[in-house]
């Protein structure tokens, strides 16, 4: 590590060269001028790209002037390229915004595009002041019996970041192909995609460690020791991780499933290493529930074998209407409501004789459990309108009071 620090410290020796200082000073001055100019009221009214193009033009002009005077200009050129690239990244983001949802674009931008560009810029700058090939072979320590170099660490981090961020699209693509070949539902495809993604990441990490040349026996020994630590220290995290994997294999909770959480239907959005993220329609809330919870509590799901849900609406009708015709009317009404499945057919039932009315229940099936409230509401509206048309009375609760006579004293 000390060798690396010494090497990095050596880069500052270039600051003793007039040619380097003129370039750096010029670039700093132009950026300062550009930033100050962008704060002027007239500039703030103009489009932002106008100021950016202005800075690039100034840097280009400065490069040309240095070249004309046979002075070194490469650093200014590299700086202009990197700044131009950063602006270009903004344009790319803008373009992608037309095709990708905002959340995915944000994830792609902050998780992949920006880190990769910053990494690229870092390598470009290091390439200017040092020889990357010789810098990469500087040893920074011995881990698990292997000497690890700067290049290996850099490559490992790059591979791991790319694995975590970049493995998602190919794994979803492969899962989609497998779904087409083998059949299966959307939630199964999502679970498969997650499994493929984890497999890619796990294989990538093992490959990376292998490339570095870690001693496998030493890793196993350390992993054995760590497992004891895991048992005491971060057992909850580990337990949640294992629970997540188990749930995926078992298929009892998969992304896209609808679960009943505290009386509300919620859709499983993602099943992560530690927790599952569920979306609750009622208030558009996202619930983060540790995976372990699904192991220790009863879970009600509407998507275990199919996505159908049987739901019901209760209504009362006055005593003087024939229950048979009321039941027929209820069933006909339900059949005409969008979202109510015709098979299995809606079914009307007489539940009992109440104080004020005969109580009926209309049971029907819907295809999307998340639409239970809205479809039930539509059915209730349709029932009221049907009763209105047919002159069926929905009675108010009635109480008949009888005044008793008091006995003479």
């Amino acid at each position, binding site marked *: 590590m000390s*060798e690396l620090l010494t*090497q990095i410290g*050596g880069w*500052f*020796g*270039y*600051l*003793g*060269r*007039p*040619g*380097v*200082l*003129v*370039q*750096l*000073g010029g670039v*700093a*001055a132009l*950026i*300062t001028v550009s*930033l*100050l100019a962008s*704060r002027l009221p007239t500039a703030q009214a103009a489009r932002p790209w106008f100021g950016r193009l202005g800075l690039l033009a100034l840097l280009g002009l400065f490069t040309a002037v240095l070249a004309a005077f046979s*002075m*070194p*200009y*490469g*650093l200014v*050129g*590299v700086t202009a390229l990197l700044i131009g690239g950063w602006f270009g990244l903004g344009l790319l983001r803008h373009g992608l915004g037309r095709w990708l949802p905002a959340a995915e674009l944000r994830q792609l931008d902050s998780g992949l595009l920006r880190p990769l560009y910053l990494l690229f810029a870092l390598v470009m700058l290091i390439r*200017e*002041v*040092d*020889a990357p*090939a*010789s810098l990469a*072979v*500087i*040893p920074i320590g011995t881990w698990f019996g292997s*000497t690890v*170099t700067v290049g290996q660490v850099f490559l490992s981090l790059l591979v791991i970041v790319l694995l975590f961020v970049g493995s998602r699209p190919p794994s979803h693509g492969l899962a989609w192909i497998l779904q087409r070949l083998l059949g299966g539902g959307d939630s199964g495809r999502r679970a498969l995609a997650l499994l493929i993604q984890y497999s890619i990441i796990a294989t990538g990490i093992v490959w990376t460690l292998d490339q570095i040349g870690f001693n496998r026996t030493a890793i196993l020994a350390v992993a054995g020791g760590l497992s004891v630590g895991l048992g005491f220290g971060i057992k909850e995290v580990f337990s949640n991780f294992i629970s997540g994997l188990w749930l995926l294999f078992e298929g009892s909770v998969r992304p896209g499933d609808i679960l009943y959480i505290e009386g509300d239907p919620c859709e499983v959005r993602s099943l992560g290493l530690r927790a599952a993220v569920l979306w609750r329609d009622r208030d558009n809330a996202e619930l983060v529930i540790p995976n372990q919870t699904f192991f220790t509590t009863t879970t009600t799901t509407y998507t275990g074998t199919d996505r159908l849900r049987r739901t019901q609406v209760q209504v009362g009708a006055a005593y003087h209407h024939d229950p048979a015709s009321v039941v027929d009317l209820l069933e006909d009404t339900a059949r005409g409501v969008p979202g109510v499945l015709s098979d299995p057919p809606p079914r009307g039932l007489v539940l009992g004789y109440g104080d004020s009315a005969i109580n009926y229940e209309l049971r029907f099936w819907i295809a999307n459990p998340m639409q239970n409230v809205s479809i039930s509401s539509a059915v209730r509206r349709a029932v009221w309108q049907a009763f209105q048309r047919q002159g069926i009375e929905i009675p108010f609760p009635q109480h008949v009071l009888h005044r008793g006579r008091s006995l003479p004293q």
Partner: protein
Amino acid sequence: MKGWLRAAALALGLAPLVAGCGRALPPGVSPRAGTTLYVAIGVGDATRIDSTLRSALRERLEALERLYADVRPGVNLELLIFEEERLLAEMRRRTRSGLAPDLVLAEGSVAEQLHQEGLTRSIPFPNPASDQLSPSLIPFAQVDARHLFAVPVGYEPQLACFDRRRMPQPPDTLQALLEASSRGQTFGFKLDLGDLAWTLGSLGALESFTAIRAGNPATEERVSRIRQWLLWLQTANLQQRISLVGPRANLSDGLLDGTFVWITCRSSDQTHLQAQLGDDLGLAPLPAGARGQPSPISVQLMWAYGRNSSARQRQAAEQLVRFSLNPPVQRIMTLRGRTLLPVSREAPLPVASSARLAALVTAERQSEQARSQISRLMVLRHREDDFNRILIAFHYGNLGVDEATEALVRLLQSPSP
């Protein structure tokens, strides 16, 4: 701090540095403490750049830095290693950026190319450093009568590297080499005129090459020697266990993976081979032939000056180069690295210190004996690819021995480029 304030502070912070960096030091004044010199070294190919090579080169540079610190403290040497093929491109790019190394340690041909492209400075001749060199070296580094393109600092002789576990005694004649191959020993040569030049002396063809090149008539005797040289190469190639590989092939890897037991190598290959083979690596002079001693070409490593140095860096670099040619420093550097031999005329060759060093010195003496003749062929070094094309065509049977001989003679007779 706001972004623009940071930028302004950076610009202002640099101002004091700008103020004092352009002034040259008065003569005789040493550079102040904290002068950093960037030293670029070109190595064979990218696969050679590993931790072992870096630490070996760094160790040698640090040893030079420590020695130099005794007389001029405060000069730090920063090592930059480049693949030799990329050295020119890197120097072009860095010179454009103002970040070119202050010193380049490279083979003479590379140093000359750097100078021809205007990437290194001309050095006035004579100068205090050149006064310490053997006079025979000067023509190899000269641009014209008053300038050098670089300053030679050491020799890297060509010799034989072999695996002592499988070959206890290396062949000292070409006949012994053929006999050893018939007994099952495997040998590797490069199909490259520079690498095969040693066989010209052993097989008596060197005089023919130099005489024809000098404009003397291509007599039957001279042409016959060249023909016999080619026939020997053909005979060797027909041996099952002697391989002539392409100019870009890596013989060292063949020695390490057991494909070869004996290869031709440079003294600088030791670092890579030693790391793998340890004491099993053997070094020996190249074998002599019935018609004479081998005529290997020793590579001259030279210091070339980059163009972007500040006045302090320039002065420190010149002083360091002069210091590196001091006889005691040359001797110490030879004994430490054991890959470079001294070029200083006053530096004694320490042959008794190890068998490997003795092999290096013998190889260098063989090279020195042939140097007067080889130097006459130096003008053809830009045509090495043309020579190699003829050798490769002959090797693969596209040219017969008479056609190849004729092509070589024609090339030797052609005017200098």
